[in-house]
C-alpha cells in the first residue's frame, strides 16, 4: 500500500514538473476550434454508426431466429462475413467502392434509368466511416441481441402468442423489452468501443478527433501533446457514456426487483438530509461528550 502510494506520488510529481510535457500547450489545444470540431465529428460518427449497428443487429437477430431457413441463413451469412474480415479492410473497401461501381443508377432493372449518381459524391469520408463501422457493428450487435432474446423465458412468448399477438408483436412488445436487460451492458461496451474505433477514420483522411489532432501535430511537431489532448477527450466522452448506460439500465429494470437502488443523485441528496437529521438527533448528547 505504502509502496504504491510513494510510486504514484513520485510519478505524478515527475509528470507534473517535467518541462517536456508542456502542460500549457495541452491546455491550449484542448479547446482549440479544430479539436472541438473533431470532437463533434467523433460524436456524430459514433452515434450514427452505433445506431445503424443496433437497428441492423435487432433485424439480424430476429431474422436468425426465424423458422424460415432462407431468412435465418441470410442472417448467418451476413454475420459470418462481417465478423470474419477486419474492420479496417472493410473501411478501405467502402472508401474505394467507386473503383468497382463508377456510377449508381436507379430505375427499372435492364430498363430505363431515372437517376444517375457517382458513388464518390454519395460516399463521402463521413459516410464511409458511418457505413463501414455501422455494417460491421450490426454483425456484433446481432449476436448480443440474440443472446438477450434467448435469455427471456419461453413462457413469455407463449403467453403473448396465446393472447393472439403475432410473432412480430410478441417480439416487439414482450420479448425485446425484457431482453434489453441482458442486451444493454454489452451494448454499452460496444458503444465505447465504437467511439474509439471511429479513430480509424484517420486512415482515410477523416475529420474526426484523432485525424484533426494528427493534422495539427504534423504542422507543429508537438506529437505527444496532441495525443494527450485526444486521449483526454476520448476519456471524457466515454465517461459520459457510462452515465447514459446507468440510467438506461435502470429504466429497463422496471418490475424486476422490488425496489430499485437509489441513483447517485438521490444518494447524495439523502446523504445530506440524513447527516442533518443525525446532527439534530445526537445534539443533546454532545453535552455529555468530552471535547478534546
Amino acid at each position: 500500500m505504502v509502496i504504491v502510494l510513494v510510486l504514484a506520488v513520485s510519478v505524478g510529481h515527475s509528470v507534473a514538473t517535467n518541462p517536456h510535457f508542456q502542460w500549457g500547450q495541452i491546455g491550449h489545444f484542448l479547446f482549440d476550434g479544430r479539436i472541438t470540431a473533431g470532437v463533434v465529428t467523433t460524436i456524430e460518427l459514433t452515434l450514427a454508426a452505433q445506431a445503424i449497428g443496433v437497428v441492423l443487429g435487432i433485424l439480424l437477430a430476429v431474422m436468425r431466429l426465424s423458422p424460415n431457413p432462407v431468412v435465418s441463413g441470410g442472417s448467418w451469412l451476413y454475420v459470418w462475413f462481417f465478423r470474419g474480415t477486419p474492420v479496417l479492410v472493410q473501411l478501405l473497401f467502402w472508401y474505394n467502392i467507386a473503383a468497382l461501381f463508377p456510377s449508381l443508377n436507379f430505375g427499372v432493372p435492364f430498363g430505363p434509368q431515372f437517376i444517375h449518381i457517382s458513388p464518390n459524391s454519395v460516399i463521402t469520408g463521413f459516410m464511409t466511416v458511418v457505413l463501414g463501422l455501422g455494417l460491421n457493428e450490426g454483425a456484433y450487435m446481432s449476436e448480443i441481441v440474440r443472446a438477450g432474446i434467448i435469455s427471456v423465458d419461453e413462457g413469455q412468448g407463449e403467453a403473448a402468442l396465446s393472447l393472439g399477438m403475432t410473432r412480430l408483436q410478441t417480439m416487439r412488445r414482450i420479448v425485446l423489452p425484457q431482453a434489453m436487460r441482458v442486451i444493454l451492458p454489452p451494448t454499452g461496451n460496444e458503444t465505447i468501443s465504437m467511439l474509439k474505433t471511429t479513430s480509424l477514420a484517420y486512415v482515410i483522411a477523416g475529420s474526426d478527433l484523432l485525424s484533426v489532432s494528427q493534422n495539427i501535430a504534423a504542422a507543429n511537431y508537438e506529437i505527444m501533446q496532441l495525443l494527450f489532448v485526444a486521449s483526454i477527450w476520448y476519456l471524457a466522452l466515454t465517461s459520459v457514456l457510462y452515465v447514459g448506460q446507468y440510467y438506461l439500465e435502470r429504466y429497463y429494470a422496471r418490475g424486476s426487483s422490488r425496489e430499485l437502488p437509489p441513483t447517485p443523485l438521490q444518494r447524495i441528496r439523502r446523504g445530506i438530509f440524513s447527516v442533518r437529521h443525525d446532527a439534530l438527533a445526537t445534539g443533546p448528547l454532545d453535552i455529555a461528550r468530552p471535547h478534546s
Partner: protein
Amino acid sequence: MSAPAPMVKAEGVHKRFGRLEVLRGISLEVARGEVMCIIGPSGSGKSTFLRTINHLEKINRGRLWVDGDLVGYVQRGDKLHELRDGDVSKRRAEIGMVFQRFNLFPHKTALENVIEAPRLVRGVAKGTALGEATALLERVGLADKLESYPSQLSGGQQQRVAIARALAMKPKLMLFDEPTSALDPELVGDVLDVMRDLARDGMTMIVVTHEMGFAREVGDSLVFMDEGVIVEAGDPREVLARPREPRTQAFLSKVL
C-alpha cells in the same frame, strides 16, 4: 336442424416430438358451456393436448376443430392448407390460456398486463380497455393491486391476474394448464374460487389439473389420460368414485 357444433372436437389427434409419441389418437368432444377436467400422471400428454387446441403445438395426424373451424389449417376441397401467421393469431385471440407458471409480463403492472392484448390485437381504445381491465381485476379480487408489478404479488395473486388477462380478450373457450400446481396450498383456494365463478357464468373450460375436489364439484366431464391415450372418460363423480379401468384405479389410489 342439427345440434350446434361442439366447442372443441378432436378426432384421432397424434403428436410426436422426434421419436417420442406424446399423443396417440385423442378423440373427444367438449360442448358449449361444458367444464372438462383432464387428469393423469405427468408425461401422459395432457398438457400437450391442451396446447394443440390453440396451436401452440402442431399436430402430426388427426383433426381438431374449435367452434367448427379446423385448428391451424383451412380445408379447400380435400386438401388441408396451413393457415398464415396472422390467421393463426386471430383464432388464438378467441381462446384464453392460463399457464402453470403464470407467465405474466414482468415489465408491466397488473393493469398493463391485462390491457396489453386488447389494445394491441383488438385495437380497443385506452379508456375502454382500462375500464374493462379494472372491472376484471376487481372480479378476481385484486382491486387494490392494479399498479403492482408481478414480482410484488404472491403466486395466487399472479395467477388471478393471468386469468383476468385471458378474460380481457373475451374468449369463447378457456384452457387451464395445471393452474394451481405451482401455488402454495393456502393460495390454491382463491384461484379455484375464481374458476368456479367462471364455470357458473357458463364459460367453456378445459382444465388440466390435479385438484380432484375441483373436478368432482365443478367438472361436467372427466378424462383420464395415460401414455398419450384416453384411458377412461365420463361423469367426474362416477369416474372418481368407481373407476372401471385398472390403470385409472391405480392412479386414483395414489392421489386420492
